[in-house]
């Protein structure tokens, strides 16, 4: 924000080169985080292209998923089964700073990309492999897909809160929630190790377990159970907090209400015009009388009242009154939402097939190195010529 304020300041990772051999979303997202922070990411694609090029949604034959995950990257097609092309990958690795992969161990062995081989051939390289269960897990476990990972890690069993035994555990939002969570840890570790590389000139191997990311995100609930301070159980409610907080249907969508204190309760009573049913509750019921029967009785009355309200006016009034009630926003609500607009979370950028599109970016606004969508996802092999030419020069 000072010395180098230009139209487009360089990203935080400017000057660093990352090779991506990933073929699942977890590794692809790891490298996306690094690319959006300014690293040069060279995506190695097999002939025929990355699997996500063939995953929807599509428009005019192009995958929106691929376009989202691979903006700011370069694409180089290499047939790693071909010794000549595998040798080119080695020369790319020799000049790169990090390698991001998400294949299982047999694939890494077959392609001479195992941790041991890389450490021997490229000791300066930071090498990260993201897998469902981490290195050393049984091979048949490593084919787990995101729905298997989020079930193996416990979040599915406990989501949504209060799900009864006869309803299935849920996969979470969208198709790739556990991949994105793992990508955050992987990108964090790669960048941390790259700092060490600056100091020591040496690389490291980073083994990320997607399931262990899931466990880590619930540390202050699950750890109390493994430490014997809370009882683990088969209850679907084992992660819940109790209390009346949940989503409710209103006139034009849904709201989420969270209440834990007498202050919340009094504010809500005021917001509702202090109906007679509310006066039957103790003022401090949330703190001292928050039993399931009261929660159910509250929800029944509240649901009837909120069903007649519009989500934006009532949640705005709630915020002003000190009630933690918010709209359950949908995809269509966000790009024109005043706070998202203020922060520039969605960036309009071009795509050769889609035209201008609103790209969701990062949750961190960095004053000196803002995240920027500088280039659309590459066409298959778009950068082969450039990479081969620079290889010849080298």
């Amino acid at each position, binding site marked *: 924000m000072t010395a180098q304020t230009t139209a487009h300041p360089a990203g935080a990772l400017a000057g660093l080169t990352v090779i991506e051999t990933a073929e699942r979303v977890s590794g692809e997202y790891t490298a996306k985080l690094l690319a959006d922070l300014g690293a040069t990411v060279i995506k190695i694609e097999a002939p025929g292209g990355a699997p996500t090029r063939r995953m929807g949604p599509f428009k005019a034959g192009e995958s929106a998923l691929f376009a989202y995950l691979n903006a700011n990257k370069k694409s180089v097609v290499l047939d790693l089964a071909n010794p000549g092309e595998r040798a080119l990958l080695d020369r790319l690795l020799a000049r790169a700073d990090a390698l991001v992969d998400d294949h299982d161990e047999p694939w890494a062995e077959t392609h001479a990309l195992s941790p041991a081989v890389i450490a021997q051939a490229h000791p300066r390289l930071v090498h990260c492999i993201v897998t469902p269960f981490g290195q050393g897990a049984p091979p048949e476990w490593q084919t787990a897909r995101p729905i298997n990972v989020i079930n193996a890690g416990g979040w599915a069993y406990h989501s949504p809160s209060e799900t009864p035994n006869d309803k299935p555990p849920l996969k979470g939002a*969208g198709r790739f929630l556990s991949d994105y969570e793992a990508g*955050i840890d992987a990108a964090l570790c790669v960048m941390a190790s790259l700092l060490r590389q600056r100091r020591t000139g040496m690389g490291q191997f980073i083994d990320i377990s997607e399931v262990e990311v899931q*466990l880590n995100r619930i540390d202050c609930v699950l750890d109390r159970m493994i430490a014997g301070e809370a009882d683990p159980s088969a209850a679907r409610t084992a992660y819940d907090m109790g209390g009346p907080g949940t989503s409710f249907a209103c006139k034009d969508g849904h709201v989420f209400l969270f209440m834990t204190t007498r202050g919340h309760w009094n504010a809500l009573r005021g917001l509702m015009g202090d109906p007679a049913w509310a006066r039957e509750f103790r003022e401090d019921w949330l703190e001292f009388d928050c039993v399931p029967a009261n929660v159910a009785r509250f929800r029944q009355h509240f649901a009837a009242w909120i069903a007649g309200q519009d989500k934006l006016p009532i949640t705005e009034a709630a915020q002003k009154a000190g009630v933690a009630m918010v709209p359950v926003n949908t995809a269509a609500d966000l790009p024109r939402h005043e706070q998202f607009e203020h922060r520039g979370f969605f960036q309009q950028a071009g795509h050769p097939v889609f035209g201008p599109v609103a790209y969701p970016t990062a949750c961190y606004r960095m004053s000196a190195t803002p995240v920027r969508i500088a280039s659309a996802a590459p066409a298959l092999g778009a950068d082969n010529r450039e990479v081969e030419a620079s290889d010849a020069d080298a």
Partner: protein
Amino acid sequence: MPMRDRGGPLQGVRVLEITKVWAGPYAGKMLAHLGAEVIKVESMTNLDEMRAYGGVDIDSAPYFLSINQEILSVQVNMKTPEGLDLVKQMVAQSDIVIDNIRPGAMARSGLDYESLRKIRPDLIQCSIKMWGSDGPLGYQTGYAPCFAALSGLTALVGHEGETPRGMNIRYGDSTAGACAALACIAALHHRESTGEGQFIDLSAVETMTSLVGDSLFGWSVTGEVPHSDGNFHPEMCPHGAYPCAGVDWTSIAVANEAEWQGLCEVLDAGDLAADPRFATLAGRLANRHALDAALAGLTRAHDAAELAEKLRNAGVPAFKSMSSIDLATDTFLWAREAYRMVSDHRTGSRPIIGPSWRISPDPPRVERGAPLLGEDNQYVYRDILGLRQDEIDDLIARKVID
């Protein structure tokens, strides 16, 4: 002059955290578990609620112990001018400052970025707030399930045809902390390249939004608004959790013909394999409710873990839906050190949820449990700030160190 050599890629990086509850402390934990020296500013006059939950001794509060391993604790009363001056001296010796206190509170204490960069010009400061640090709604505060609802994520999680109730109510804080740690390390790279620090303004709402980025981008491209869809997957079928013996469930994801045949074989479901409605992925997707019901009838008799193992051995991705008792007693997770032991002041040692990473060579060591309140006062005041013992004693007597 770090307190002790813990190894790891962030060895030599010092972080000061002015944080409470979960998101901020989680950011500090992530950095500490990578080898950074992370100092938590604490005070009896403004205690982290996590030291109080459960109504127990503030030095052995389970919530606090479960997050703050390898964190150092220094006591300072930030409600006194002298205390604030000491915090500023600590900032001057730190690479990164992280906070997640109420909007405006850092500025009111003179700890905003513009003030702190005068003390430490190359400082990296990260503030975690529900909506970020400014903007029309920047003043608002909230709880994790609120920011998940605001973010677009909750709208995508629910059983089909029902009110979207979102992820478990605990979801959100820890991920916001992880993203804060990520951004801080990115900023260290920029500092290495240019010598310049920066301010990182993190929105917890947007953290959740970034986890549904592909759905939002898809909407922008196709105009189709995504909704909560149970366990539906447009490219896999069957795809879901299927009921097993007792209250258990097993997740199954079938992406191709071989996996479909493998599933039918394990379930001895020749009639499903032969049913023309289910012969292709398109057919299975079109008839998925009938298919899911038929499969549920077949899976219900099986033990969830045994069925998942049989399916995996037949090449079908499957895994038991793990409850908290399953997770806490899982031999694979214990053997892999997903849970590991750290020191504990009360009982000698305590199991914790270890980091998701293994790094070698030079791994970061995670050995020390959460600190006692003020456990590292001497280290911070004497070794880092260079105060004499009589000065420290005086600050304690006057409750500046409290």
